[in-house]
């Protein structure tokens, strides 16, 4: 992973391993879903990191 990307995942979709480390990130969830297919079910999880100051409604 690009070192410059490691500290800011706000508003990005991330792939997280069992140690709770981000191993891949993208603003496009499809990129992360594609990467997630390389792992067995349950080895990684996909999450959208939120901007701590944001508020979500729909």
């Amino acid at each position, binding site marked *: 992973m690009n070192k410059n990307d490691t500290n800011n995942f706000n*508003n990005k979709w991330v792939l997280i391993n069992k140690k*709770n480390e981000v191993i891949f990130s993208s*603003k*496009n*969830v*499809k990129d992360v*879903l594609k990467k*997630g*297919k390389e*792992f*067995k*079910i*349950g080895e*990684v*999880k*996909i*999450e*959208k990191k*939120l901007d*701590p100051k944001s*508020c*979500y*409604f*729909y």
Partner: protein
Amino acid sequence: MKTRHTNSLAFSYTEPLPMIPLRFILKNNESTPLMVGILDSGSNEIAIPLKIAQEYNFELNKRPPSFTAGGKVQSFSSHVNINIGIPQKEIEFKNIEICVLDTNIPILVGIYPLFLDCKVSIDGLNKKILLLKN
């Protein structure tokens, strides 16, 4: 993968918001990767972004647009099978109607079906979630 269905689940979370793992079971009985949704008692159903639905070819039925904090958004309905939990221990929901929004929202786990079928306890102090299904 063998799945053990259960009536009670406990999770810890690290983010400020209560988040739970889930996955969608597809028509060919395959599964999406594990994803994480925000428990959101202010939403009336599960909502996902359109790009996830498109990636897995969910059948979409157009709904009237939704008016969100981000503006007017095209929305769709879809019927899906969802397992909540980690693959070895899950609560299964079949043929659940969800909302699909053409915007980059996180996955939201609203009232239907989880809060209707389960006792949902969120312990914000200790960042733990307990689900008990009837």
